[in-house]
């Protein structure tokens, strides 16, 4: 293996390595950190973020960004809870349909008008939250999950882990294949790496972009619905600032914000890292809220710097 390959592996797995280090250090420092209960809570709570982050990974690799996911997450939850009164199918299809539609529209606007994804999805962030407030009586109405099958989907467990974890694992594997082993995945990398060249190489740029945002919308809606199932209600105060967490996870995972490079493994590691950091802060148990923030900021900075240094060799060639 030559130097290029070594550094490529590091670039892709820098986040995995940082994650390993943090987990080991955490286990040594706190007795109650490496317990099954704690691990389960980190994994379960990370799964929703991970589902959204998978979509975001595609978006960012394609050279775009999706700020609307936090709002779509909460909208998906409200719609899922609302739809659950008509049964499991509606509870799942309604959020997927609406959030997918929003993603599709954003994708169309981005692909057809050439407007910056940042601004289109920022409008999405506002508009979708407005829509959520409109259907929930300015946030005052919380729909409760009526359908037991739907609730079971969010909370039912196999081997201590709830269904959303398995759904996340399945989606991650599917996303890896999609990204690495299909023409669509190649097109995503190509337009993120050099959109103009991709167009000249015959990549259907517009269509690929539309799919990418559609996917991101669908996954954010799905995550919202599953979360509503878990919480048994369509909580309306969720998802504020969530987009930044998701983007941070993806970028820590080694995906370049400029597009063209990155992968699912890194993203999943990035999501887990964020979860583990929070959990470590909770372990300390006596930090004031202000100090907790300082510590998470420092941690985040350390992690990105470590990840950056690990992948430095790659960048310089």
């Amino acid at each position, binding site marked *: 293996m030559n130097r290029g390959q070594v550094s490529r592996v590091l670039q892709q797995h820098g986040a995995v390595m940082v994650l390993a280090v943090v987990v080991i250090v955490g286990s040594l420092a706190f007795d*109650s950190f490496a*317990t099954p*209960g*704690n691990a*389960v*809570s*980190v994994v*379960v*709570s990370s799964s*929703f973020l991970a589902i959204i982050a998978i979509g975001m990974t595609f978006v960012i690799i394609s050279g775009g960004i999706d700020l609307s996911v936090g709002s779509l997450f909460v909208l998906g939850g409200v719609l899922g809870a609302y739809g659950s009164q008509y049964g499991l199918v509606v509870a799942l299809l309604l959020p997927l349909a609406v959030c997918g539609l929003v993603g599709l529209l954003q994708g169309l606007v981005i692909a057809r008008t050439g407007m910056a994804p940042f601004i289109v999805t920022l409008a999405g962030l506002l508009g979708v939250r407005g829509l959520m*407030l409109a259907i*929930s009586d*300015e*946030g*005052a109405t*919380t729909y*409760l999950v009526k359908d037991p099958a739907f*609730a079971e989907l969010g*909370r039912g467990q196999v081997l201590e882990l709830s269904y959303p974890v398995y759904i996340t694992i399945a989606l991650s594997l599917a996303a890896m294949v999609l990204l690495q082993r299909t023409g669509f995945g190649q097109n995503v990398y190509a337009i993120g790496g050099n959109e103009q060249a991709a167009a000249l190489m015959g990549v259907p740029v517009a269509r690929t972009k539309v799919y990418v945002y559609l996917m991101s919308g669908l996954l954010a809606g799905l995550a919202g619905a599953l*979360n509503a199932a*878990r*919480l*048994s*209600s369509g*909580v*309306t*105060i*969720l998802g*504020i*600032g969530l987009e930044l967490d998701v983007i941070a996870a993806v970028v820590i995972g080694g995906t370049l914000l400029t597009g063209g490079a990155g992968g699912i493994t890194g993203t999943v590691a990035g999501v887990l890292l964020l*979860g583990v950091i*929070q*959990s470590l802060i*909770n*372990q300390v*148990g*006596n930090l*004031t*809220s*202000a100090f*907790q*923030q300082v510590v998470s900021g420092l941690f985040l900075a350390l992690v990105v710097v470590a990840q950056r240094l690990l992948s430095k060799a790659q960048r310089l060639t």
Partner: protein
Amino acid sequence: KSEEPQSAPAATGTAGQQVVQTPSGTAGPTCTLEQFGGTKFDLKTATVGFSQSEKEANPFRIAETKSIRDEAAELGIKDLKVTNAQSQFSKQITDVQQLIAQGVQLLVIAPLNSDGWEPVLQQAAAKKIPIITVDRKINAKPCSDYLTFIGSDFYEQGKRAADRMIDALGGKGKVAILLGAPGNNVTTERTNGFKDRVKEKAPGITISFEQTGEFAREKGQQVTEQLIQSNPDINGIYAENDEMALGAVTALKGAGKEPGDIKIVSVDGTRSAVQAIADGWLHAVIESNPRFGPLAFETAQKFLDGEAIPDKVIISDRDYDTTNAKDSLGEAY
């Protein structure tokens, strides 16, 4: 060397202590250790978890967390674990789950939201961990999902604010509402209580403006600036917390208004707000008492001792107005 005229409230001692409104046992069902199905343990040596919902950066949350910590120290509880959800509901769920994973035996939760606690309740019930929620309710079954709720009645607070406003305006005029953060239970209930009461008692009062000030002073100031500019005929402002009310005061001062030109009523009872009453800028403040520590641990101890605990403990909140503001400054938080 810092100019810090009035931070760090020295609210120790018993001044401003919470008082239970309804004598316990009168209303609703009760709960005993036996009914709940738990086992007795010694509070002093137990691991206790407190999950705070928002940053300790406003007087209410500061006083709330401090009261819990102080009382725990007072009682000699050694292992108190405190988490803070930084206003993110998902984080609060995870926080509590991690507290459970760390082996807490009693949970005190200041919920960010009333709904959505299913996963936590499930886990706590499995381990028979009693949960006391403070300040905000959880929509679930007392005595099976959780033990009890201690706090104020926000709807009632809204109604009482309306009474004060109706008084101040003599039953007619135009009123604006500075709403809290959208989607928040507190916002919803304080709004509904106010509106219902006005509709019922004073049809002469119209609510001609309602915009969110997100519970923050700056936002309250900005919205009020827009409001008085385009609706100069407004007579009263109902602010759903003190911070927004004080922001409104700054806006009124900036627009050259005099104290009392526009009647402001708000909810919370922070020291600055009570001072503003004394200065004539606020008309009245409905208190929402954050000092949950003593009552929470007292309830827990009673429960462990086998006493019957009511399904909700509503505390009696006081009012501040010009008649008592000056004298009550020491009790405000």
